């Protein structure tokens, strides 16, 4: 039994199905809400806070990717306050690691870089933490550069939910959090990795890339995850 609800997004009344999230409904109706950790076909985690929206009757901003629609709900996707929060979130992502866009394999094809431009982030107002982080080059076909990881977890969920291998997870906590394969093994020695490369395609930045592509050359096939999901649902 599919229950229908009516919600208002940026003033427009939209019919939706109960259980859908605000983000899903918005995107299905060509309303743009930015997001980094969300990826169609994966579970939502509400980690990056870029998709925050205003919901009538709720005092704080809520992440659109994890908030279900409800009858009579009124959603606003962009206000000066929302935009300023999104900008802060983006700036903090840059400040945390060493992105150095100019010499990144994903420059020009990076979701973080593009979102920063879209939101008019011309500089970061916080001091950079400049951690010294390794690059894992041990896998024969792929590379993991921790300097460019934003801990969105898309690789973790892709590997766990789509490939079923769950090679990746996030270890540590706070500023020390980092992506880990198995028990902190070098990627090339991870026995559960099938080398399918879907994590690389899911990565929004240059943190994961195919080996051998030079700066600016790494373009990703972002739809691989949603295509697989929809094909499986269809079968």
């Amino acid at each position, binding site marked *: 039994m599919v229950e229908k609800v009516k919600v208002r997004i940026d003033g427009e009344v939209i019919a939706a199905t109960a259980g859908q999230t605000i983000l899903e409904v918005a995107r299905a109706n060509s309303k743009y809400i930015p997001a980094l950790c969300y990826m169609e076909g994966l579970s939502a985690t509400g980690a990056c806070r870029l998709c925050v929206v205003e919901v009538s009757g709720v005092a704080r901003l809520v992440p659109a990717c994890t908030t279900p629609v409800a009858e009579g709900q009124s959603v606003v996707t962009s206000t000066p306050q929302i935009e300023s929060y999104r900008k802060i979130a983006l700036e903090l992502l840059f400040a945390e690691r060493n992105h150095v866009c100019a010499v990144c394999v994903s420059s020009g094809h990076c979701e973080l870089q593009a979102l920063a431009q879209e939101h008019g982030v011309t500089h970061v107002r916080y001091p950079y933490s400049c*951690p010294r982080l390794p690059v894992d080059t041990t896998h024969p076909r792929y590379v993991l550069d921790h300097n460019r990881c934003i801990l969105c977890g898309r690789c*973790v969920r892709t590997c*766990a939910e789509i490939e079923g*291998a*769950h*090679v*990746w*997870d*996030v*270890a*540590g*906590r*706070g*500023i*020390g959090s980092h992506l*880990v*394969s*198995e*028990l*902190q093994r070098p990627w090339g020695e991870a*026995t*559960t990795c099938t080398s399918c490369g879907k994590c690389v395609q899911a990565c929004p930045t240059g943190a994961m890339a195919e080996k051998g592509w030079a700066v600016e050359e790494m373009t990703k096939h972002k739809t691989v995850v949603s295509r697989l999901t929809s094909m499986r649902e269809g079968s």
Partner: protein
Amino acid sequence: MSNALAMALPRVEDQDLIDRIIGDQAGRPGALLGILEKLQDANRHKYLPMESLEYVALRTGVPQSQVYGVATFYALFNLDPQGTHTVAICRGTACHTRGSRALLERVKLQLGLEESGTADKLTLTTPDRKFTVRTVACFGQCALAPVVEIDHAIRGHVKEQALIREVDLLRKEAAR
């Protein structure tokens, strides 16, 4: 897979222990935390060896990366062998303003521990595994600042000289 597993397995008696612990916890949601806690408790050096973590993953079906994520998220768990004695120095705000950093540096010097930690948690163990020095975010005893915990006993208003004496005493004890 079988080959890599064979190399990484813990000793047979440890396997038995892990199997027993897992058996006790079987089916409980969030069982992993309890398993790891018991495992660390049973370890002579109070830590979780990599082989044990791998075996836990194998037996519980929890992915290795998730086991590792849990083991590194909680400050309670150690991935390195701990010393016989533990000196935990608080670096909460109150203790910090009352000179806990100097206490830490002094103890490190006394025990010949050199490297400095940059992460939010610092744990250093002497090569002879007699002492582990670590920092703690807050003991909740701010009125007693600076606070140091020695072998699970809290000391308040700690002075440098008193701390040195106490650690020296433990060192001589350990030497006997």
